[in-house]
């Protein structure tokens, strides 16, 4: 189709000079100008804060009133304090409970179960279930937090009425459990949709064979389903864990209390850095959070790449849209 010599130069001398691979004729200068605004914004508001955290974590920077003190370099002092700090150990442990309980166990198991039960049942019940789960996902987090505060209220809370446990102060007695259940409620939709898409790629003939062979549900899942969606399970687990680890919304429900019993790491950073004004100390914990994020994100990207490979190796394998969407 394309002629050996490009006619463009003769027809459109006014067009910008272009070089190899420049389909739009932008030229290097204009291309750079197009990329620059985005790059500057990312550099100033994303990359710079990250680098600054490295430095801040080694200072005793403090916030008192409206002014900030002169930062003084203290080396690894903050890190030594953090590692010996009981509040930090507690927040680490609570964060683990939060991530394992709500993301890994709660959302994954519930999300998969719903997707599995609903897999080939079109109809009003399925639409209702999926609609409600999605609605729980798209509502603003402040609203969701408030709904749960109202539900869990000691005196007027609907939960006590439904469970027949009048007078139970759930948020005071079991703050962490409340926060986990709350997060399962608001986050399950993502897993449900992702597994729904993944299950669509398990050949129906496999399920049929398992059924005819009299396999139990668990055997069917283990032998016919899980091996085919292992990539989806792994990537969504890592992604949801990353989100949950960085979630601040539990603060809206319990503010870390009572007595710090639901103070996960994000809330702990907030309290020490901006509540108590210990900016340097807070930055040190932030850096620990960033390092944990880095590990999860690298594992995630690796799992995603492996899944991409498996897909090219096996045509008609996994679903592309979900993978790409999840990457963003």
């Amino acid at each position, binding site marked *: 189709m394309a002629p050996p010599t490009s*006619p463009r130069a003769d*027809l459109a001398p006014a*067009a910008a000079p272009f070089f190899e*691979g*420049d*389909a*739009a*004729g932008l030229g290097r200068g204009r*291309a750079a100008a*197009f*990329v620059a*605004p985005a790059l500057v*914004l*990312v550099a*100033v*508001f*994303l*990359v710079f*804060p990250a680098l*600054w955290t490295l430095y*801040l974590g080694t200072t005793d*920077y403090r916030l008192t009133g409206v002014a900030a003190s002169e930062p003084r370099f203290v080396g690894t002092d903050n890190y030594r304090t953090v590692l010996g700090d009981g509040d930090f150990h507690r927040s680490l442990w609570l964060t683990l409970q939060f991530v394992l309980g709500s993301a890994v166990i709660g959302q994954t198991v519930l999300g998969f179960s719903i997707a599995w*039960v609903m897999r080939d049942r079109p109809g009003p019940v399925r639409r209702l*279930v999926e609609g409600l*789960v999605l*609605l*729980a996902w798209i*509502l*603003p*987090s*402040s609203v969701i937090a*408030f*709904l749960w505060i*109202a*539900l869990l*209220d000691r005196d*007027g*809370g609907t939960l*006590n009425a*439904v469970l027949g446990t009048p007078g139970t102060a759930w948020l005071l007695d079991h703050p962490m459990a409340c926060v986990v259940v709350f997060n399962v*409620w608001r986050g399950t939709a993502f897993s449900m949709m992702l597994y729904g*898409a993944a299950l669509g790629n398990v050949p129906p003939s496999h399920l049929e064979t398992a059924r005819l062979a009299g396999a139990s549900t668990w055997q069917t899942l283990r032998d016919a389903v899980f091996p085919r969606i292992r990539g989806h399970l792994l990537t969504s687990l890592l992604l949801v864990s990353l*989100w949950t680890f*960085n*979630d601040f919304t539990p603060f809206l429900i319990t503010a870390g209390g009572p007595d710090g019993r639901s103070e996960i790491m994000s809330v702990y*950073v*907030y309290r020490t850095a*901006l509540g108590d004004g210990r*900016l340097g100390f*807070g*930055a040190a914990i*932030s850096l620990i959070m*960033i390092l944990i994020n880095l590990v999860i*994100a*690298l594992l995630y990207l690796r799992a995603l790449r492996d899944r991409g490979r498996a897909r090219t190796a096996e045509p008609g394998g996994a679903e592309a849209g*979900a993978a*790409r*969407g*999840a*990457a963003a």
Partner: protein
Amino acid sequence: MNGTVRELLRRIGLAVFVSAVLGFFALPLLWLAFAPFDANPGISASLPEFTLHNFRVLLDNPYALASLRNSVLLAAGTAALVVTTASLAAYALSRVRVPGRDLLLYVLLLLSSIITGTAAMVPVFLLAFNLHLIDSRLGVILVLTGGLLPAAIFLLKDFTDATPTSYEEAARVFGASPLQVLRHVVLPVIRPGLATVAVWTVAQVWGDFLMPFLLLRNPDKAPASVIMYTFYTEGGQPDLPLISTFSLLYSLPVVLMYLFVSRRYGFRFHGGIKR
């Protein structure tokens, strides 16, 4: 015989599971649907007593409607900035072969997933402090834009990559400048991508609590997500009629947006639209 018993148990188990899931997810949502119209929200035992009085109270609150306006400003401002800068960058990155481009995108995406609002709250706060962006809506918009841009560029580059370059080449043959090509040829073609990124950005900003909470001091500037937490009665209890009514009003736009998107484009994953 054994088979039928097993089948029956399976069906019962299924029904119990579905009912439990329905109950779990419906309960808070029913509360959201009914409490605003209830004269006594919170007292679960009583049947709702229908009233529109709560909406009148909401209108009288000096901060409620202003905070919704602030939410609109933040969401629209961020979406405009994200869509403009991301589409320029994505277009150039898609059409011009820059050395190290893929590495750059990969690193940006990695950075945006590890430098989250919570992990970077200290430097972001200090940055805003030093740039005199504390208590400025622009500050919130800039910070949010910085965090959302990598994913937005990534998404839009995908859309741009998928469109053939032949239209642009044809336009250039007729002497169109690159900006004209972008405006009249490229933008119309990648419009679904722009809409996706805009909706995704609005959804992210609309529900965001942390950044406005950190960076804004004056309640006049606070968006809905933050102002909800100032609604207390004189007795120090959460003002349930006010908060529930406000919650409903504050939720409606995202629900409508979601319905619109799912009707128009079919609901698919684009960057986990929520978070």
